[in-house]
């Protein structure tokens, strides 16, 4: 493989072994392998001696099962490791609603908490507002960090279409809850805004028509009870955001060797440097390296010409097929390298590592170990 010249290789083991590394955040576009990478890094760190917890968000079912996660349960569960493991691994699946509920229960007195939790508007907000999942992933990270129970926390990020959502969505929720409109609507009943003119009355009546009067009442009741907890809520989100800027945090950006995924990775890396967040490196997942041995040196043109000569002679169809297959693979590999190098040219100095596509989905600890080996660029386990 022609290695990326720019930033050299990501030294995964050095990153995981360094006691100063406390948080690893895996980011990237949807479906590129963030959850897989997070789980593989967590497993590797644990086997190399660290007390590790992995927060997964929406893992593929079989992967979750392999870590003993049967359902959303929001607390870390021990994952049994092999004999020689020197550390420990816990894993959890984020339950955003439960996390939100816990925050409410923590900040509000019991009576008020009960009111909030029963409010239909709150229930919609905590299950379907876009951004809640990201906010709650951050919240959970903050909780685990403050508990002091863990050497290393590996965080998977929600499967949003844009990697940037992980950083932006929590603020969006904060802005929404703090926004002038929600204040305005909740003030409607007591006439505070009446002085502002007829336009506002009309607006309220139109919103009422469109979303329904009941929902507006729920919003009012929600704002009235939530106001007391909102300050603390917001402060905590800001703290967690700052935690992401600390030197003990390492962002690992994951992409597949495809245009869209790499473009997403590029945006995200720019954003990290803009926000002074520490980027550890780039994982290019699901690549298709050429086979070992002499085939690595057989070019696509040569293979196609050889296949054509066999086909013309009408002999050795299996060999002709093998040669065509190889030519496809060489072309694919060439495209992957070109795409990757274009990205690295824009982001000089970013350490990179490749993980080859496994033959099947990643669904047990052995597969995770194989991905971990690839991430650390060490040969396969025996």
């Amino acid at each position: 493989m022609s290695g990326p010249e720019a930033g050299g290789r990501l030294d995964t083991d050095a990153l995981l072994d360094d006691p100063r590394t406390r948080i690893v955040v895996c980011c990237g576009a949807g479906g590129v392998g963030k959850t897989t990478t997070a789980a593989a890094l967590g497993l590797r760190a644990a086997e190399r001696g660290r007390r590790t917890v992995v927060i997964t968000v929406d893992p593929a079912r079989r992967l979750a099962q392999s870590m003993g996660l049967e359902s959303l349960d929001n607390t870390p569960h021990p994952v049994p490791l092999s004999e020689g493991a020197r550390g420990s691994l816990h894993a959890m699946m984020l339950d955003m609603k439960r996390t939100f509920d816990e925050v409410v229960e923590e900040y509000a007195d019991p009576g008020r908490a009960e009111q909030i939790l029963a409010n239909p508007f709150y229930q919609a907000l905590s299950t379907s507002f876009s951004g809640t999942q990201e906010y709650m992933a951050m919240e959970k990270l903050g909780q685990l960090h403050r508990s002091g129970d863990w050497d290393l926390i590996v965080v998977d990020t929600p499967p949003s279409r844009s990697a940037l959502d992980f950083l932006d969505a929590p603020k969006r929720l904060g802005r929404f809850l703090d926004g002038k409109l929600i204040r305005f609507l909740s003030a409607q009943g007591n006439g505070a805004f009446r002085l502002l003119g007829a336009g506002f009355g009309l607006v309220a009546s139109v919103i009422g028509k469109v979303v329904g009067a009941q929902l507006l009442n729920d919003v009012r009741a929600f704002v009235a009870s939530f106001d007391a907890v909102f300050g603390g809520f917001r402060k905590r989100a800001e703290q967690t955001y700052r935690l992401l800027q600390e030197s003990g945090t390492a962002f690992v950006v994951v992409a597949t060797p495809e245009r869209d995924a790499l473009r997403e990775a590029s945006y995200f890396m720019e954003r990290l440097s803009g926000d002074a967040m520490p980027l550890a490196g780039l994982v290019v997942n699901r690549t298709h390296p050429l086979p070992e041995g002499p085939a690595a040196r057989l070019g696509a043109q040569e293979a196609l010409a050889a296949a054509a000569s066999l086909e013309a002679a009408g002999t050795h169809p299996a060999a002709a097929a093998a040669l065509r297959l190889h030519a496809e693979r060489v072309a694919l590999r060439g495209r992957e390298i070109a795409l990757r190098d274009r990205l690295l040219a824009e982001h000089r100095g970013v350490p990179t590592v490749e993980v080859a596509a496994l033959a099947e989905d990643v669904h047990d600890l052995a597969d995770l170990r194989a991905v971990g080996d690839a991430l650390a660029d060490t040969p396969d386990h025996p």
Partner: protein
Amino acid sequence: MRLHIVTGKGGTGKTTVAAALALALAAGGGRVLLVEVEGRQGVASLLGLPPLSAEERPVASAPGGGRVLALAADAEAALLEYLEMFYGIRRAGQALTRLGAVDFATSIAPGLRDVLLTGKATEAVGRREGGRRRGEGPFHYDAVVMDAPPTGRIGRFLNVTSEVAGLARVGPVRGHADKVTEALRSERTLVHFVSLLEEMPAQETRDGVAEIAALGLNPGAVVVNMARPPLLPEADLSSAAEGRLDREELAAGLEAAGLEDPAGLAASLAGEVDAHARRVLMERRIRSELEELGRPLLDLPLVADGVDLAALEGLARHLADQGVRR
């Protein structure tokens, strides 16, 4: 005119297939509208155009004088249009926008956003020449194609009446939702699924077809995208899949082709061949599982060097060759 809703697992090619389908339906002089609903500008980036707006505009032409127009449906624009249509209010609409009210309303009530977006597509389906909503004139569009949300969200997205039921039991929004639902359930609307011959997309397709049917909507075709023809002769497939491909025969072939170190090369290529054979057999199994759904299967080949307009036209011809037409 028909509404073709294209869904599928994320990344399987919904946007690509929707665009190819629009081209295929426009062939021979049709006028087709391509609607994007997720605000991602997938159509624009696919066609190499500046971002689409909520206003329809021509984006491609098809053989025989066909035309494809496209728009990116936008909840805010649709809501303002709707308010103006039903209440004749413009000023309040502008105040709503200024206050971020539309964002607000659609955030607290995601079902509202969905009904506004699907409503935009059903409105275009029913539109008559000259912009009238009712009447006898010919339809404005021959077909409308929607690049829809992925299978994980499609049921919710299309189940608009029950989505807004919690918001408004009576009144104009409810009435609007009921009309949209009626249009979605009519035989004029088909929900197509894009799948790959891989485990997860096929599973999502099976689940999606069942979900759509349970909602009283009509599943259409299953598009098997990025299909690759098997390279290995039939006779060698199963032995290669089991790792029993005759390596000496392979080496003999490589030698006959004049390549150096045929034995070494054969050993080094054998792994690729075996993996290919296993994949082909898996793809066959998945295809037969998809066939059991009883929906027509349409094949689209894997395009080698990225999908551009020329490649899309090629994909549209593949669809036409398999019987896709207005």
